[in-house]
């Protein structure tokens, strides 16, 4: 017998003055599992370091990112090499600008593009997909056909056209990335919602008279968030790569602002003259960031749904 009689239970409770027990939520369990994954934790630390570099690197830099040191133009090979004494820690680019400051700025913009893309995907995509899946029937049909139509548009082409027509700006780039990133997420969220909405706890909520919006926000979204988070962390590097590609084509971020993609593009042009640092430093941060995101995403997947390892 578990609890044979209530009077006894009450007695025990009063005598012991029991404090409320703190429950271990599924999130707490997942955190423990995640922290046990070395590769993921190291990657997370590295990500934090990269983010710190992007946020506070500007304080360490000796020069402004758009300050052109005319005396260095043309003498990159011996005066613009990375060195502590000159204050150009990462050297200078072919225009005599401090590469350290520019890398800080580029990393920041690249991270921002990735995070904004992922955020739009998580917020818009999840709510859209959960709503479509929860209501089902005709609403679901219409909402998901819209997604299908948007997906069938070649977005790279449309984005390039948009950038050409409306001018090249960071805002346009964010808009373009925001427009595509949520489509896949909406599909994933809808598929998950279809399985969750038939669970009994959702039926209980419906039978109790909980409003549909609240059911979606309180019962469905928290239960599909695990998969959404994993997908979002894997989406961030994709967005960074996407932005880098656009910038590499010369259509993304415009001078004097820069991104890792634009820096790599510049560096690749002077690589053959032996100015290795002009590509090495941006590439290093690019690779580190993307690897770290992938490892963190993997770690999160293992932690959040231990079933499908």
């Amino acid at each position, binding site marked *: *017998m*578990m*609890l044979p009689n*209530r009077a006894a*239970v*009450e007695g025990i*409770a009063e005598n012991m003055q*029991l*404090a*409320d*027990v*703190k*429950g*271990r*939520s*599924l*999130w707490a369990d997942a955190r423990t599992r995640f922290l046990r994954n070395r590769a993921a934790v190291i990657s997370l630390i590295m990500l934090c370091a990269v983010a710190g570099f992007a946020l506070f690197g500007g304080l360490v830099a000796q020069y402004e990112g758009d300050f052109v040191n005319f005396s260095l133009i043309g003498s990159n090979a011996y005066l613009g090499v990375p060195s502590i004494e000159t204050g150009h820690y990462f050297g200078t680019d072919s225009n005599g600008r401090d590469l350290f400051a520019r890398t800080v700025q580029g990393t920041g913009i690249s991270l921002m593009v990735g995070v904004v893309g992922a955020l739009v995907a998580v917020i818009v995509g999840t709510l859209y997909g959960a709503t479509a899946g929860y209501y089902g029937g005709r609403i679901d049909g219409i909402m998901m056909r819209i997604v299908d139509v948007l997906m069938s548009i070649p977005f790279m082409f449309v984005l390039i056209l948009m950038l050409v027509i409306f001018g090249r700006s960071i805002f346009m780039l964010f808009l373009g990335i925001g427009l595509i990133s949520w489509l896949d997420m909406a599909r994933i969220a809808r598929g998950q919602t279809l399985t969750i909405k038939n*669970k*009994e*706890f959702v*039926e*209980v*909520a*419906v*039978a*109790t*008279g*909980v*409003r549909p919006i*609240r059911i979606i926000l*309180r*019962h469905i979204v*928290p*239960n599909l968030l695990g998969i959404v988070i994993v997908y979002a962390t894997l989406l961030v590097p994709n967005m960074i790569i996407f932005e880098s590609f656009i910038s590499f084509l010369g259509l993304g971020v415009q001078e004097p602002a820069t991104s890792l993609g634009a820096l790599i593009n510049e560096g690749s042009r002077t690589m053959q003259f032996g100015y290795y640092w002009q590509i090495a430093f941006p590439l290093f941060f690019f690779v580190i960031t993307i690897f770290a995101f992938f490892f963190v995403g993997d770690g999160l997947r293992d932690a959040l749904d231990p079933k499908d390892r």
Partner: protein
Amino acid sequence: MDALLSVRNLSVTFDVAKPGAWPWTPPRKLHAVSEVSFDLKPGECLGIVGESGSGKSTLARAIVGTIPSSGGNIFFEGADLANMDTRERRVHRRDVQMIFQDPLAALNPRMTVGEIIAEPLITHEPNTPRAEVKKRVGVLMERVGLLPNLINRYPHEFSGGQCQRIGIARALILKPKLIICDEPVSALDVSVQAQVINLLMELQRDMGLSMIFIAHDLSVVKHISDRTLVLYLGRVMELANSRKLTTLPEHPYTQALIASVPIPDPVLERARPRPVLEGELPSPLSPPSGCVFRTRCPKAQASCADARPVLEDIGSDHLVACPFHEAEHVLAVGS
């Protein structure tokens, strides 16, 4: 008649698309529940039994309103549920609560026990202060035999029996008038079953609840319910006082059902005639004509195929849907 709940000719059909059919071909109709009528008085407990697929759960869900009915009426305190608009319906829902078969599946794994139990309260009385909500949840947890200090725990930290108690607490927090239990003990082990059933009976008595108790275990139903309804393929076969139904059943299906319940006495069990029921439940997509039970009925006659048997009252509120019914003593279940 001042019944709390009156169900009149309730039917529930589902559309089943033929595999590979075009979207515009009319779907086949699956008759899950067909023309079921009964009354439930305040404070009464009605048991519903029947084998798997007989429409017990569908009937319950139609009453709760999570599945739309396709015919007939449900009157709750005289008001027809079909005529209610969305708002009235939402207000009405506080009076009818449901307890489910799988205790863990019925609890949201991402919410604490306190949030789960408080949800109906917050939904219907959103202005209740936090402290008051917590107090009421605590009182109720104690009432169903859970330590109130476990309020911040999560469902996966509890055993099946405890989860069912959480489900019961959630159903009771609004002091509903009717509780529908859909096989609340089938997923629990036998010792815990008894505790949960006794708890339900105690709560029903103390709070004056009406209850619809669905089970496929006749001995459980007999123990808890005043009257019992026997369903077969979505149709009422027999409705009578539980004691009378289990000792002197009139309908051949009820007799077969009771004969199939094992008796926990090897000597008696061996001496008893074997169950007479053979074959499978016919497909509800194409139920037999006339009496649906005739394909498996030991007393079936040619005339059974012609017309659907009427549910006739044979005295003292005993309803049977079989013209050839005769009382037959069966070994009483669990007594």
